[in-house]
């Protein structure tokens, strides 16, 4: 009862005071102490930051100088962070889980969530006190992804990850003559038009600006359009026609020099957000607040490229990534894990607070609708209401092409695409090598 009351109070506060509320959100905390630290595994410090900046202040905990988080009941929260490069996070997580390490909660990305959802390492949410009904306000696809073969829900996400195409308004006006997002959408409404626009941009700017950073950015979008996941139910590798299309598209981009050759997550890719070398990026929800705002070179309109961006649907709807919180089977503090999961993925009040302050796109249809209805604008995007765009894309998200093997198979494909695009191999050799590499890494998969 008390929690609902404080939630209503918080929402009322937000609605009356306005969306730029700097009020601290607070909620009750009645999790009993266990005397043991809560151990969370992740690959970066995003969730750690979320706990530190939102959850801890909200429940009345403290953060020490060295970053340790202490809850009101005296328990601590510990993070174990293993970066994602080369699939290392998965390796270390597997090692910890199978060795019975102390692990209460871990994060999983879309690329490998299915693996853990279908394993015994994740607890059904019902076992920590969260029913499926409690997840009713979440975007349905996020719930379906976390559903295992027996129908139990094994994870919960705080965000939905529909994707859009972000572009620089000033550069678009300069080189393409477009003045509004609608005009821009016309220029990128399908892949053929997109390619033409890429040529236009390169020519008009004399190679100083390119439409997208690299061919790798296209893969994130195109992979959702496949007919089949990488591995079907018979554990066979399926190379969809879209893959061939992608190989060719990537080669065209490289041969005609239409990209800035800035591979995703490289230094040039990060830097391109703050300089004029790259006009557009494909990003889903988390990309905008987690990657773009940090790299644009400013924090207010006018500084760096802040405020000069706009969002359009792009050539096709897609989703990219998404993170799910899972309770580990060795969890020793179920009430606390439940509380944290509820704070970020279920409760409208806390999620709305987080959403507005971080500009993430939270997994709560009600909260999002409220925010849009209250007249949402984002100054980073020149005052655009991109949430409406996201809201429209989300129902179109099709996660049927997800497989537990995605992260590793994508990496292996990337190697072959790079060879092919560099001109080191022809297509048939690249595909043959790709099949060989996949089977070597996953002997249980067959590839004809």
């Amino acid at each position: 009862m008390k929690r609902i009351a404080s939630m209503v109070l918080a929402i009322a506060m937000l609605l009356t005071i306005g969306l730029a509320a700097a009020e601290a959100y607070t909620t009750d905390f009645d999790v009993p102490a266990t005397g043991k630290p809560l151990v969370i595994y992740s690959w970066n410090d995003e969730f750690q930051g979320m706990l530190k900046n939102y959850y801890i202040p909200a429940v009345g905990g403290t953060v020490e100088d060295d970053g340790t988080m202490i809850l009101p009941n005296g328990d601590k929260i510990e993070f174990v962070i293993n970066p994602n490069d080369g699939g290392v996070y998965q390796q270390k997580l597997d090692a910890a889980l199978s060795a019975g390490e102390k692990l209460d909660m871990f994060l999983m990305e879309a690329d490998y969530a299915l693996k853990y959802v279908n394993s015994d390492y994740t607890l059904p949410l019902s076992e920590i006190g969260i029913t499926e009904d409690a997840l009713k306000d979440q975007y349905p696809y996020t719930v379906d992804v976390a559903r295992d073969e027996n129908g139990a829900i094994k994870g919960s996400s705080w965000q939905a990850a529909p994707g859009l195409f972000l572009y620089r308004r000033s550069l678009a006006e300069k080189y393409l003559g477009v003045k509004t997002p609608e005009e821009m959408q016309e220029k990128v409404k399908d892949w053929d038009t997109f390619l033409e626009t890429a040529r236009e941009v390169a020519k008009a700017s004399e190679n100083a600006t390119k439409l997208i950073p690299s061919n790798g950015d296209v893969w994130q979008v195109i992979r959702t359009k496949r007919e089949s996941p990488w591995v079907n139910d018979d554990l066979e590798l399926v190379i969809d026609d879209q893959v061939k299309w992608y190989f060719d598209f990537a080669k065209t981009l490289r041969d005609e020099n239409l990209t800035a050759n800035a591979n995703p997550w490289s230094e040039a890719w990060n830097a391109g957000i703050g300089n004029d070398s790259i006009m557009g990026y494909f990003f889903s929800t988390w990309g905008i607040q987690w990657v773009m705002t940090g790299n644009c070179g400013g924090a207010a309109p006018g500084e760096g490229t802040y405020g000069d961006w706009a969002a359009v649907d792009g050539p096709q709807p897609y989703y990219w990534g998404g993170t799910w919180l899972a309770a580990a089977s060795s969890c020793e503090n179920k009430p606390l894990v439940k509380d944290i999961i509820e704070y970020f993925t279920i409760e409208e009040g806390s999620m709305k607070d987080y959403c507005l302050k971080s500009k993430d796109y939270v997994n709560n249809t009600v909260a999002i609708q409220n925010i849009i209805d209250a007249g949402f604008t984002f100054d980073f995007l020149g005052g655009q209401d991109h949430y409406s765009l996201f809201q429209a894309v989300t129902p179109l998200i099709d996660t049927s092409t997800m497989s537990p093997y995605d992260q590793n198979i994508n990496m292996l494909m990337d190697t072959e695409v790079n060879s092919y695009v560099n001109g080191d191999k022809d297509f048939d050799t690249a595909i043959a090598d790709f099949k060989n590499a996949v089977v070597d890494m996953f002997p249980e998969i067959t590839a004809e």
Partner: protein
Amino acid sequence: MKYSVRIGLKKALVYTVSFVLCVTSVMPFLVMFVNASRENYDIQQGISLIPGNMLKENMQTLRDRQNFNVARGMWNSFQVAGLSTVLALYFSTLTAYGLVVYSFRLRKAAFTLIMATMMIPTQVSIVGFFTFMFRMGLTNTYWPLTIPAIASPTVVFFMRQYMLTALPLEMVEAARIDGSSEFNTFNRIALPLMKPALATQAIFIFIGSWNRLFEPTMLISSQDKYTMPMLVALLRSDRFRTDYGTVYLALSLTVLPLIVVYLLLSKHIIRGVALGGVKE
């Protein structure tokens, strides 16, 4: 051409080549240290030997990235390397003592066996070692990285060589006559005599263990237990791509202690290398 002129030219050549090689050996460190004090943008622009003025800022950024704790990594490496060194030194000397001082039937066979084991690098058995440690629940601890040091064939070999020349058997017998137990004789009399050998070997064992990457990567899974080289491997990951100054600073911090220790002990180290290679 006159003989002395020929020699002179040759010497000039030798000195020039030596100079170039010395510069080559030192240059990467200079680049590392200089870049540690430069700004990311400048570093991208090119290699320079002129230090920048961003050292403090880079240190600040590195500290704020809480998950890269250089001090912690060094302490972890110190624990592993330190314990390995102590165990290797003590037990290798003990084993060598057993082989030198006592005559027993299997002595020759034992020594041959130890020589043979010297030839098998540990990496080939890593898979069996890993699954074994996994079953014992010892992964992600330092025990698999340190206990095996008790059986260090190369150190035994070296200690035995040294002992054959440095330890007079008469001393052992004299100690027996005085009523000292065998174990006591070893600890009180033999061991101190081995000090120079112990010192030389200690350096090599410690540095060798400090620099290991393969075995720790196999066995350690939580970042707060990472050894120094494992942390260094993290520097290639995405979150450092926006600020290279911190990467070079972190590299410099990992390399600096080794350089300092080396410069202090270089004479011993080089003498040890020379001895090790020749076994005179």
